[in-house]
């Protein structure tokens, strides 16, 4: 196989896997939440309800795709595109296994942080363009949340970067052959998990959506495939966060030899996805001033302390 063919296969394969996997996650989440709430979840369409996503897709495609007359139309249309684009683009730097992965940037981690930070534009553009009170409040909350979690999100990863000595995610995985970074960087992993949940707008940090208070928050006015792009974008973001934690803290594809490396990567990612669903099923949502004070007064000092202690131990 020529390198060009291998690259094309990687690109198409990962794109299909990410989008299809995120679509399946909607079914996984509903089934798993159902199990934890002593009910069944969607189990009617196809075996165990696995074709539920097909039914949902048909419904969303056939639905009227309404752009409100009072909206700022260009921004309204471009917002879900951004939401989907940035998370899928961030997957380009995730090394899934030896030979599987689109590109090994030497600033891969920074590329990931940059792309996820751009994700907030989708929310704020969508909220602004909708010209809707609920959407506006959702957008304000998204902005407030962003200024609290982005700071400690980046800082929590610097410990790993110092230990690995590289921003290249493949190097980070390879440097974990002696031991996963979750053990020396437990606090960093915990903080990054929180930031990742906030990043993907999931309960308990789903303040921009908060369906109980704000109908649907920033995507109140969206319908049809535009809504689906926000929705799938959220699940791609969940996958991305889980994949990132796997790569940075859980040794990526490293594992016993009896199974292929890709299996270990996918298994760890799946367990983290299930853990995020468990958190969604258990924990309540804080007010957004509580979230901000938690971010600035607790998480940021913790991340800084983690950074300083790690640096001191390396320099010793």
């Amino acid at each position, binding site marked *: 196989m020529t390198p060009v063919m291998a690259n094309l296969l990687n690109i198409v394969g990962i794109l299909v896997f990410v989008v299809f996997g995120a679509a399946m996650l909607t079914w996984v989440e509903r089934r798993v939440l*159902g199990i934890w709430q*002593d009910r*069944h979840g969607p189990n009617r369409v196809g075996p165990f309800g696995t074709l539920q996503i097909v039914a949902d897709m048909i419904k969303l495609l056939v639905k009227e795709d309404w752009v409100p007359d009072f909206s700022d139309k260009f921004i309204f249309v471009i917002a879900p595109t951004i939401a989907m684009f940035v998370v899928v683009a961030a997957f380009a730097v995730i090394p899934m296994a030896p030979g599987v992965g689109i590109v090994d940037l030497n600033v891969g981690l920074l590329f990931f942080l940059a792309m996820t930070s751009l994700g907030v534009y989708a929310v704020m553009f969508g909220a602004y363009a909708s010209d809707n009170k609920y959407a506006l409040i959702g957008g304000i909350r998204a902005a407030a949340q962003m200024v609290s979690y982005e700071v400690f999100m980046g800082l929590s990863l610097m410990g790993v970067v110092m230990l690995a000595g590289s921003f290249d995610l493949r190097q980070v995985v390879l440097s974990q052959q002696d031991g996963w970074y979750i053990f020396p960087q437990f606090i960093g992993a915990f903080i990054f998990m929180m930031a990742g949940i906030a990043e993907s707008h999931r309960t308990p940090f789903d303040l921009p959506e908060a369906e109980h208070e704000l109908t649907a928050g920033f995507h109140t006015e969206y319908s049809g495939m535009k809504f689906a792009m926000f929705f799938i974008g959220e699940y791609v973001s969940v996958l991305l966060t889980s994949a990132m934690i796997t790569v940075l803290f859980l040794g990526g594809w490293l594992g016993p030899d009896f199974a292929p490396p890709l299996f270990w990567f996918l298994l760890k990612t799946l367990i983290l996805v299930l853990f995020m669903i468990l958190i969604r099923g258990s924990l309540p949502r804080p007010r957004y001033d509580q979230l901000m004070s938690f971010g600035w007064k*607790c998480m940021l000092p913790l991340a800084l302390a983690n950074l300083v202690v790690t640096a001191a131990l390396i320099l010793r």
Partner: protein
Amino acid sequence: MKKKTGLFYQMYIWFDYIYSNLVTLWGVLSHTFTRADTVQYPDQQPHLHPRFRGRIVLTKDPDGEERCVACNLCASACPTDCISLQKTEDESGRWYADYFRINFSRCVYCGLCEEACPTYAIQLTPDFEMAEYVRQNMVYEKEHLLINGPGKHPDYSFYAHSGKAVSGRQKGEGVNEAQPVDVRSLMP
């Protein structure tokens, strides 16, 4: 109240936050192995108790005659006025309903008609599968309501106790009945 401060108290608060969240996570996770409460209805029938209040029927007495005497008490007890009937009489003097109509699109299945009925004629049954595509089909006539049995009170027969003369039974021949007093007789 004096506000509690101090490092140890703050540490205790943060420990409590983390601990209570972990307990919650574990509590939810432990439900992985509990059975779902769902009754998957079309595949699995729900258990309906004998006194479940569902579809209304008109029963017959042990002799196979209609119990309903068209007294209108059910219709006047009905809070939604969904029962409509007209009394008539046959040649033997027995009362029955000329027509008996229940509009089930208005019925709230409260069971007050059953409580009001002096002859145990109208009864509610454990059946709720009454959906229709045409609203008019929700109006049940007497032929739809009558069932061929006594329902919940198998031995009860109103005319056996009523003291009313119907064909084959004169006054005083019923259960626990004395002969009527002959007011024209001088005997004590």
